[in-house]
């Protein structure tokens, strides 16, 4: 597609369940980012991929969070044993190269609600 695509757009889950969020970046974009946006708050950096490797995963809040990227394309963010504080919009962005001078293109996000 022309833009960054994320799925699901909405996910409601019960506390303790695992969830997977998917991101399809713009074709040819080597850099991919995951951010989290809690209600009323700014964007919180989670992880950055360059190609299939993650040189910066400093923002992952706990070992319940993991992410991978394959084929320098699709990325999956997995949250294990979800907690209520995980409720947020999870945003994915991609850029042609690393973000340093370029523009990030954002998807519309996956809204996660943990009951």
């Amino acid at each position, binding site marked *: 597609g022309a*833009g*960054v695509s994320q799925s699901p757009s909405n996910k409601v889950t019960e506390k303790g369940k695992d969830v997977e969020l998917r991101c399809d970046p713009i074709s040819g974009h080597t*850099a991919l*980012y995951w*951010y989290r946006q809690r209600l009323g*708050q*700014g*964007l*919180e*950096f989670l992880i*950055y991929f*360059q190609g299939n490797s993650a*040189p*910066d995963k400093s923002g992952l809040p706990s070992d319940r969070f993991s992410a991978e990227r394959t084929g320098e394309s699709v990325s999956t963010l997995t949250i294990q044993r979800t907690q209520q504080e995980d409720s947020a919009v999870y*945003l994915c*962005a991609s850029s042609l190269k*690393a*973000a*340093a*001078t370029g*523009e*990030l*293109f*954002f*998807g*519309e*996000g996956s809204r996660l609600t943990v009951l």
Partner: protein
Amino acid sequence: AQSVTQLDSQVPVFEEAPVELRCNYSSSVSVYLFWYVQYPNQGLQLLLKYLSGSTLVESINGFEAEFNKSQTSFHLRKPSVHISDTAEYFCAVIPGGYNKLIFGAGTRLAVHP
């Protein structure tokens, strides 16, 4: 640690009035600066950016921002707003040597008729 402070969480303004959305950052190294906008029910999109050169940068829809190194600020301004400018605006920085954007908490601009 690098951080971005957006001093106003909400800014209500009447149509055709001027507006300024404030942004300050903390960084001891050179930075690149950005404003992103999120219109209702849409994803974030880049509004304007400062990388180098002229400290005043402009967007295609009339917004401008000025990089002030001494005050570590990058305030966003528009001389006359429209209803369609209603959105959330995020200031962001990339500190030198980093490859990620650090965002402020956002300012919700509400333009009233």
